[in-house]
């Protein structure tokens, strides 16, 4: 009976938490959200204006103003960040720390106490020789996502 109750509880909990979690698992920002096609604008004004505009009748879309189960989700914000700053992220990953890594792991919803361990893990298998900036960013994101899902899921609950 206890076992049945436990099983029922687990099932209930899993049903209650699955949709958001599944949505997070499913989204590949590069394949489904066009992250790889994004080009970071070199023009300051244009870059600044590219992520406007809150206007009635449309939806504000920025990295953080988003629902959690679409291409506006929090992992996509992290992917966007990685895609835009992969140069700095690479440099900080080989060094083992840095403010870009902190921001990136915050965006992945990871607790600060786990940051160092995650970075160490990524650093241990880091491949610097991927060809092309966009491919580097995608490979990095995939490695990070995999590391988090397999080893740090508990410390990286999406906020």
């Amino acid at each position, binding site marked *: 009976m206890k076992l049945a109750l436990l099983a029922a509880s687990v099932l209930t909990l899993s049903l209650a938490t699955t949709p958001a979690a599944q949505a997070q698992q499913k989204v590949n920002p590069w394949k489904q959200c066009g992250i790889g096609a994004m080009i970071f604008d*070199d023009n300051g*004004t244009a870059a*600044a*204006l590219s992520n*406007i505009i*809150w206007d009635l009748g449309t939806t504000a879309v920025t990295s*953080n103003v988003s629902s959690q189960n679409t291409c506006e989700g929090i992992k996509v914000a992290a992917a966007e*960040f990685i895609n835009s700053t992969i140069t700095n992220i*690479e440099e900080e990953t080989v060094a083992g720390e*840095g403010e870009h890594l902190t921001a990136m792991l915050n965006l992945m919803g990871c607790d600060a106490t786990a940051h160092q361990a995650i970075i160490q893990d990524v650093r241990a298998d880091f491949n610097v020789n991927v060809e092309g900036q966009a491919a580097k960013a995608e490979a990095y994101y995939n490695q990070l996502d995999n590391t988090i899902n397999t080893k740090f899921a508990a410390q990286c609950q999406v906020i």
Partner: protein
Amino acid sequence: MKFLLFAVCYLLAFPAWPNVVERLQQQAALQDLATAPYWLALLHQEGVNTRSAIVDPDFFLASAADAGAELNATLAALLLPVSGDVNAHAQCRFIARSHWLQQQLPELKHQLATVSCPLFDDWSDQQQIGSVSAIFASGYLGNPASFYGHILLKFNSASDKRALLQQQNINFGAEVPTAENPLLYIAKGLAGGYNAVFSYGDFYRNIHTYGETELRDQWEYQLALTDAEVKQLLYHAWELIGRDYVYYFLKENCAFRMAELLELVVGQPLISRRKPYAMPISVFHRLAEVEHHGQPLVSKITQHPSRQKRLHAGYQQSSPDVQNAVAWLVANNYQLAGAAFQQLTVAERIQVLEILFDYIEFLKVEADTPELTKIKNLLLQARLQLPAAKPTSLTLNDNAPHRNTYPSLIQVAITDTENSVAYDLRFRATYYDLLTANRDPGVFSALAMFDVQVRLQQGRLALQRFELLNIENMNLSHTGLVGDGGLAWKINLGYLPEDLVCADCQQLQLTAGAGKAVPLSSGILYLMQDARLHQDKFQTGWLSADSRLGTVFDVQPYWRLHAEIGYRSYLNTERDNFFWYRLQQRFGTSQRWDLRLGIVRQRATEVSLAFSYYF
């Protein structure tokens, strides 16, 4: 009894006991809220019936030129029931208006339905903003609109889940079509041909665009505002995002609009309304002067260095062994197996690699080649093989921008010419020349616009010279590495004396020059070749050239000297070529004034003593 008296008075004041909206509108009218400076500031109107600076009709519920009608319409909209998208409700669209009206009309607060605004809450990090910073992005010669720097605001989240790079910032800029013709861009920017909006984004985008791509330092001035003031700013910034203004390059630009926004809570002028132009740096001078609640308004200043600045600081602050290894690796195709690198300690090798990261990325700004990417990967791999360690911390000793000399100049001079004594009055709108004090150490450049000088001589007042634009960039190398530094260059457009022989020898001139400057211990030495295109009013022909050899150096911190000798050659004309020289000296290190003593020989000689006042 008191309550009864109040009720009677109230009934006398509002005999018909109108519905809630009308009652609140009447209360607002009694209190004359429509003329309150704060209400007008929220509408961006100078007076009750003047037209708002915002040209976006969606910013208004009734009228862009009637603050009273807008107030009544706002009250009515705030009291409407929520239907459809809650974010579209007036309580979410006009949070600052709602907040202020609730403070002025206590009954309104009780009458309003409780509304949560998810978009605003997401944008404002659930309203956890703890402080606000003004950011100064230093000048950028790659874009005329950025010569004088840029200003934006950063909302600093109090949440420990938001790091520096995730902070929210707002920006004000013109909406310029991609690949706009540069001349059209300047013309339309000056004439109000573009709309401009406040936009928002994460701070990492600024770090990337300004710091990595345009190699501009950013200076963060954190402001000592109360929690209530931070909220006021946040609320109004939200109202402004995406709303169209007309953009004027000279005056109603980012500096003007950001200052205007900050004035809402600072309560003191932060930008001059009288000056016909507004510069970002002027806002920072002012922020540093202002006291707010009895304390300096600026509580903390932080420099976010560009990639170039990190390269220079990293190189200059490293040991000779590290510098030698860097230079050797650059010169020897990055052979990391070489003794110059391998004989260093682990910490030194890490430092070498960090400097080279910055160097390669600095080079990539100019030309991002596959070869550079390959080198970068090689360096990353080398760093990966060394232990993880905190990156070397750099000491940055640049002057904070507000410590620079003020940007505009008024100068009076007495000049001894070969004919008689003359009295000169000079005005320069912006910004600095090779003698200006309080610039960054080791940077020698000039950037001046609208520099006009009139002369009173023998009872006659006349225009002596007018320079629309003068830019000189010595482009010094700070590391000696290939690609750091390059050709010095100059461009000048003005109506200038051809020489000093006659009083009326001015003609239109366009000068472009190139050369090389090298650093000295406390100055520079340069050699330049200028080409001059000018009018032919004095048998000068259309073309001439100046070959110049000069030096600028600090004799003492308070005494800078600029000496230059040159030879002018006229092409396709019989006019005589001639040697010339000038010696200019600046005394003083104040941000507000200096004394200048100069002698110039160009066929005739002039000696002048000038007092400069900066503002």
